[in-house]
């Protein structure tokens, strides 16, 4: 995914936690444990200067996107959007944000610094 997004024009941040667990279903069953795992990923992504997290798995995307309120309450403000890598591909191909469902996230993605290429 690093290589794919890089050739599509993204600046990929070196993120050694890319294979660490997002919390999985623990966010629902054992929130103390699950949310902590989610928080570690969000915090480290912000610390390393990422604008957005790209995910493959729907559960990862949901955990990293949907629990910001609870995480902020527990550990202080940490805010970063998580989208599917396919949505970023769509942007690179010039599809409109609405069609890509980018507005349906809990945490919306920051606007792109440059206009994506138009088809």
């Amino acid at each position, binding site marked *: 995914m690093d290589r794919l997004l890089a050739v599509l024009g993204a600046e990929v941040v070196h993120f*050694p936690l890319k294979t660490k667990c997002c919390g999985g279903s623990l966010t629902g069953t054992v929130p103390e444990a699950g949310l902590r795992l989610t928080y570690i990923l969000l915090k480290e992504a912000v610390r390393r200067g990422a604008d957005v997290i790209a995910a493959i798995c729907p559960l990862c995307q949901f955990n990293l996107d949907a629990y910001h309120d609870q995480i902020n309450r527990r550990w202080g403000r940490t805010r970063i959007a998580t989208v599917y890598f396919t949505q970023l591909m769509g942007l690179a191909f010039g599809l409109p944000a609405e069609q890509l469902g980018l507005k349906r996230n809990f945490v919306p993605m920051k606007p792109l610094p440059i206009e994506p290429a138009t088809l």
Partner: protein
Amino acid sequence: MNASNGNGEVRIGFYICHCGTNIAGVVDCPAVAQYVAKLPGVVVSRDYKYMCSDPGQELIQQDIRAHQLNRVVVASCSPLLHEHTFRNAVAAGGLNPFYFQMVNVREHDSWVHTDRAEATAKAKSLAHAAIRRVRFHRALETTRVPIHPDVLVVGGGIAGIHAAITVANAGKKVFLVEREPSIGGHMAKFDKTFPTLDCAACILTPKMSAVRSHENITLWTYSEVVKVEGYVGNYTVTVKRKPRYVNEELCVGCQECLKACVFKEPKFPDEFNVGLNKRKPIYIPFPQAVPQVVVIDPERCIQVKTGKCKQTCLEACADRHAIDFSQKEELVEIKVGNIIIATGFKLFDAKRIPQYGYGLYPNVVTSIELERLVTSSGPTAGEIVLRDGRKPKSVGFILCVGSRDMKTNRWCSRTCCMHSMKLAQLVREHTDADVTVFYLDIRAPGKGCEEFYDRSLKEGIQFVRGRVAEVTDWALAPEEEGKLVIRVEDTLAGFVRRIPVDMIVLAVGMEPQADAQDVRRLFNMSCGSEGWFLEKHPKLAPVSTFTDGVFIAGCCQGPKDIPDSIAQAGAAAAEAMALIDKGYIEQEPNTAYIVEEDCSGCKSCIPLCPFTAITFDEAKQKAHINAALCKGCGTCVAACPSGSIKQNLFEDEEIFSEIEGVLTYA
């Protein structure tokens, strides 16, 4: 030869061997002997405990004399093992050795079957076939071909160097061909050798100089073998000599040209220092290089690439005229009798294991990079430093990188445990850093090696057992900030550890050379599934290959350390010299021949021969087979449309009667 060898009455002696219990444990040997005794033509039929023993062979000889036997069949092990033994016994009894036929009732029967009755029946049917076949055997003579006394050694690492010097010291002429601009191989890059901590250069460079000055060695560096033709004793080898754009005879290695090069600063990665520093397009591979001659990199030199350079190097070379941009690639043909392959190995590319961060984190280095750092003639003059120039306070060694790993290479590279411990001790010597070694098992089987491991422990080097999961710069605690963190399950302590260090050394394993398959085809060798060149027998013929006159030495056969490489090189040299000093090669008579009156001259057979043994006689308009080149593969025999090619020991009547023998056994 005995008159009974002629075409008169056939008198067969049959012997079945018990091979201890190897055969007799499954096959009822006396029953087989009794069965064969009743077959037509059989005069003697015996079973015996060990036919290959002296009394066993004596038995055959006595029977030949006492019963005027003129055919002998032995049912025992594989012909690979003892066909020669029994042929010699038959010859000693006064018979032509090719009146002998062997039946394999061990590998083909007792070792692969458990049912005694059926295995015995199979032994009988195989014996029946051989008894029918041997009747058609004819007296044949082995031929002798003279052997060329010169030897080719391919590869100028420590194994090739040692093999070349050994053969040359025995007074034979040696051609040593090396692909790189200098000989020395991997060993030239080492600082010290384990377990004695001898200076590697101090023991290698005298041998390198000896190669250069030896009157019997022709050294061709920057050269590659491109074609091999012929057979044992008589190989014709074509060597490609790449242009180095410097006349080796005229250059004295003063290196004035290096200073004069239009590239004021070294700009290109220095291969010898594994890219840790830079060199110019004109360079000398390393200070002790042999030959001590500069070389011009055709990929980098402006003059070679474009022809539009000021050629300041030529001016610097002045009257010597050693630099010669008109040099062209040259093909040289040589004749040799034996070939020793010592083409070595390549190191595992650590980037193939991305979780260890090689290429990503600058302070993750490979063992050979640390080796260059620790060498006083290396890029940092022996200082072990991080990429930013600081001295490391802690160093971690990760072992089995690309070894003993189902995802990359399954084999143990054998030297990395010891090599890493040597480097660990040198790190302790050169810095005050803490050293931790992450290992799966410490393998220190060589002489003095376990003692070296003990010494490493006593010197305060920490050992953590477990395969490292990942190397990360993700700090979880303040003491991890700015460091590389090794995450590993400590399988002795039983928990996952995070160990922060400044520098990580990956003990990369050995792999077959990238072009090992091409080299294998060139010299008609075999490779094991991993790509190492295959020896003829793992125990009894470790430096021979399946091609006679081609020997292997050093790491091209499999990972090994310097003493083992030297031992193999010496063994390969001795094997080659044994052939040379015998003076001739005895050739099996199982060659194909043309029945000229039947040959229609259709030439179908000529392109089929893998050994180019068949030529066309224009005068007679018939094909002709050179028996010296024929390996008896039988391809032409099967292909000939008129059936006019036949093969000694595999004549139609021999094969058909053997098949009938199996099918009609009752």
